[in-house]
């Protein structure tokens, strides 16, 4: 991770941000975290708590499309942070950015799954997530132009091949995926990374769905399957985000106006999701090995690929 900018750079960002937002000044600008593709800052302006996300150079995605998805999701009634300002031009503050309202709550999965503060939230979450996905998937796909629309198996097949680290387990999984592809032809705007970690949860339940940069057009069952991938249960035995059961999720999704759920289709997406996370672990190790981001944490993630392989065998036991 890069070092936080020097105080004078923070000062300059604060000035440019105030200009961009057309406010006299912004206060308490603090960098919260830096991901591979963006930096996140917290600040206040005009009495409001806000969050700034700034795209890193090298990330080719159009943040304007992401902002449009968040707006469309909010308009449809999904719990999201409201967008206060967004720009995909570098003129204002030096890079594409979004300013969103700060939503109070927790994002760290292990706290949400284990702390007493979230007992009521855990009880409510599965139904809330099913309803939220039903709302998202009801948005017409042409409501947001510019969304990626990639065939997911081919996409991750190419990503694995380009890494150049073949795994027999993944070949077995791709073979299974090809042989068991669901018949469903439904298309929707999907979040693309719908799981604990990418949602703000308060003491009573879901506060907001965040981190929309992987949103794309696809099969709506992709979001349900990804939510159930074993890695996103963070050690819990409950299949849905570590807090709920499949039947509860599917019932809430259908009650909220989603299409009738075929559990086998969700399972198929869950298997692809497990494979996908295994490939993403390799991508993270590659970021270290290539020198893009030297880090023993990223290096160690390379040795988590076998967890995903094991999960694939467990998920497919008796289903081959």
């Amino acid at each position: 991770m890069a070092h936080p900018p020097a105080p004078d750079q923070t000062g300059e960002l604060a000035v440019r941000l105030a200009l961009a937002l057309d406010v006299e000044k912004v206060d308490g600008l603090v960098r919260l975290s830096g991901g591979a593709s963006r930096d996140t800052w917290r600040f206040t302006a005009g009495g409001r708590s806000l969050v700034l996300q700034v795209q890193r150079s090298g990330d080719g995605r159009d943040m304007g499309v992401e902002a449009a998805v968040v707006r469309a999701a909010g308009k449809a009634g999904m719990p999201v942070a409201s967008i206060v300002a967004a720009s995909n031009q570098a003129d204002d503050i030096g890079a594409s950015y979004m300013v969103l309202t700060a939503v109070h709550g927790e994002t760290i999965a292990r706290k949400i799954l284990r702390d007493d503060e979230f007992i009521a939230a855990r009880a409510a979450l599965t139904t809330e997530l099913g309803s939220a996905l039903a709302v998202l998937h009801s948005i017409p796909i042409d409501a947001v132009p510019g969304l990626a629309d990639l065939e997911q198996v081919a996409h991750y097949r190419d990503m694995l091949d380009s890494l150049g680290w073949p795994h027999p387990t993944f070949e077995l999984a791709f073979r299974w995926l090809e042989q068991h592809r669901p018949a469903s032809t439904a298309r929707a705007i999907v979040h693309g990374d719908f799981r604990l970690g990418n949602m703000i949860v308060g003491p009573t339940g879901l506060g907001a769905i965040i981190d929309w940069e992987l949103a794309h057009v696809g099969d709506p069952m992709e979001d349900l399957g990804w939510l159930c991938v074993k890695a996103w249960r963070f050690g819990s035995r409950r299949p849905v985000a570590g807090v709920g059961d499949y039947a509860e999720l599917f019932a809430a999704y259908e009650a909220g106006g989603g299409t009738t759920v075929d559990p086998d289709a969700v399972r198929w997406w869950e298997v692809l999701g497990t494979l996908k996370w295994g490939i993403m672990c390799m991508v993270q190790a590659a970021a270290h090995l290539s020198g893009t981001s030297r880090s023993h944490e990223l290096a160690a993630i390379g040795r988590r690929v076998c967890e995903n392989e094991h999960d694939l065998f467990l998920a497919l036991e008796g289903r081959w």
Partner: protein
Amino acid sequence: MVNPHDVPTAEQLLESVREWLERDVLPATQGRLQFHARVAVNVLAMVERELAIGAEQATAHAARLARFGCETETQLADRIRGGELDDRIDEVRDAVWASVRDKLTVANPKYLDGWRTGPADG
């Protein structure tokens, strides 16, 4: 194999650094630094396990690959992908899973235990 080095062995050196991280660094740090120290402890423990059982695992892995006429993982992956092993696919799966369990035994043995006995915290 004979090597020219003095004691401590490579294993003992790693162990000494891991013990220092656990004893002195973890209690004295917090937040992100403590998390990264914990990752370092886990990485050293992993390498210790690999040094202890890696050679034995390599022999078993080579024997599994040889059953399918392969010398490397890449060859086996290619043959599965090309459909050449479709008539022995059950046997292939059993062999591949056995090697995956060996990898987990080094990388994160709790992950194997956790599934059978209770929630894994890994």
